């Protein structure tokens, strides 16, 4: 059971319904060949990096599917080649890391760095919010500590300025 991913670019000149029906025909074709569709990503209208057939934009679709043997791929690619509405297509077999990556992407774990930071920040903020509620009594102490810390910081700043 291999997992594959096919990305294709649909001609943007077609009307919205036609574009959708084009994508749907290929989804149907894939399912008809006994494949199990894992995910369909409509990446939407995008600017092309270079013109294809005098078009400067394209509608991107990405279908991820599982299939026991890869014989249907040649059929599918033949259909892509014959179809004038398809500007580009690319089929790729995903290795285990690719499968994991796509799963994570769907679950919003990728864009990792930003997401991680956000979640960490969120955690910190909740911690901050939670902290004063729990520690109502030692609050003045914290303030004193902050006050004590402040002059030190100021002094440090002054030092660095002197330098």
């Amino acid at each position, binding site marked *: 059971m291999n997992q594959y991913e096919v990305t294709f670019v649909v001609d943007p000149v077609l009307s919205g319904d036609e574009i959708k029906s084009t994508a749907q025909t290929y989804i149907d074709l894939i399912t008809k060949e006994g494949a199990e569709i894992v995910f369909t990503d409509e990446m939407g209208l995008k600017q092309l*990096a270079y013109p294809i057939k005098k078009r400067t934009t394209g509608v*991107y679709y990405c279908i991820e599917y599982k299939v026991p043997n890869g014989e249907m791929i040649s059929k599918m690619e033949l259909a892509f080649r014959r179809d004038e509405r398809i500007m580009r297509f690319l089929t790729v077999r995903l290795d285990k890391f690719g499968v994991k990556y796509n799963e994570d992407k769907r679950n919003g774990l990728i864009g990792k760095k930003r997401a991680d930071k956000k979640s960490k920040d969120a955690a910190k903020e909740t911690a901050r919010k939670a902290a004063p509620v729990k520690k109502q009594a030692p609050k003045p102490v914290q303030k004193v500590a902050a006050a004590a810390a402040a002059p030190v910081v100021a002094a440090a700043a002054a030092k660095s300025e002197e330098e």
Partner: protein
Amino acid sequence: MASRDDIKFLSNPNIGSQRKKYCRFRKYGIRHIDYKDPDFLLQFINEQGKVLPRRITGNSLKYQRKVATAVKRARHLAILPYVADLLK
């Protein structure tokens, strides 16, 4: 007596020393490179859309190959240009 912090240099002593390059894929445990993500791939190509050498990116050979493949796939799908000028 002047303490160590007060010593000033006429020139920046850090200028000569080069920062050690590293493979970001190995360091951060990135195992898969997505060809559909142009922003990420843009880090590995120059202004003309050429793949940067390992000498500059510091990638390990395994991941440099994967980067190259991903860039080529992206080019085919018009996500990245084959030739460009002032890409960045």
